[in-house]
């Protein structure tokens, strides 16, 4: 089994679709500005359930990935073979972040994320994120940039922290 048998990832314009799972993690509603990436659990009865979320912010030359949240209850309620497929894949956060990289990466010079969660940190290297030297701030430079440009972009991203 592959996760595409029961998971689909896509952008939506209504952030309230993910409010439930986001509130469980952050105690507030999802950001009210674009871009919202949702991983949906495709149920056998035709219903769909948002199970993982990440927000991407367009800052022109850089994009910020933040607000990652996954509904653990939904994961635990999945069939054992589905849970195994998710483990084999590397987790839902990997799927939502990959989606963002594929769709927004070509539009920018770097994608930054702010991460202090050990479990999430296990996922970030799979996406090419590396440390910036600033606590919690990770980056994937998507183009061949000079050190000076990297410093400029990192400073810009740091100015938005926490995100």
């Amino acid at each position, binding site marked *: 089994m592959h996760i595409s048998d029961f998971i689909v990832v896509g952008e939506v314009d209504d952030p309230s679709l993910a409010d439930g799972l986001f509130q469980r993690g952050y105690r507030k509603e999802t950001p009210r500005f674009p871009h919202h990436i949702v991983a949906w659990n495709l149920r056998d009865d035709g219903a*769909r359930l948002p199970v993982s979320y990440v927000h991407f912010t367009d800052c022109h030359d850089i994009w910020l990935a933040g607000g990652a949240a996954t509904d653990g209850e939904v994961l635990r309620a999945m069939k054992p073979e589905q849970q195994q497929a998710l483990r084999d894949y590397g987790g839902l956060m990997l799927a939502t972040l990959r989606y963002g990289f594929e769709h927004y990466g070509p539009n920018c010079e770097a994608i930054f994320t702010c991460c202090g969660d050990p479990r999430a940190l296990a996922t970030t290297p799979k996406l090419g994120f590396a440390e910036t030297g600033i606590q919690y701030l990770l980056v994937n430079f998507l183009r061949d940039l000079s050190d000076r440009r990297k410093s400029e972009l990192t400073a810009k991203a740091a100015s938005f922290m926490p995100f």
Partner: protein
Amino acid sequence: MLPDKPDFLIISEVDHPEAMVGDLFQRKFGHPLPEWKHDVVAFFRKDDGTLVPMSYTKFAVLEPLILVGGCCTDGRAFSHMSEAQKSALSAAGGSMAQLLSYGFKRFADRCNAYFGYCGDARAWEVDLSAGFVPTEHDKLLVHWHKPLNDQTKRALVAMAHALGPF
């Protein structure tokens, strides 16, 4: 002017419509979803948080027009609703009228007019309730959301009519 939509009706543009309404569209139209963007889905949110795709419409940008097509509603979605929810949805004009109204607002800066093509009597009434008005051409509807002079309106209607059924 439609009443506000009930909280259990969630409307969003999605960039992965096949997983949401692919089967419904195939069942209604006998062919797969066209690949043009933009796809808008109205979901019914059940008490347990799961979302049931209920209505679908594509807003295809063909500058300076947007063609509104592929409208369909899954009657099976109503089986998930209580009688009170059915009444509330009906009082709000229904999921399709709410979806159309949502799209008219969302894409307002991307076109000079919206056109629909409708041959079903019941859908025609829903289209009118959402803000479409008939044109002089059979089955062709338009929704004006900008102040345009009559000559421009005639030109846009002629363009849409020239496209034929969509």
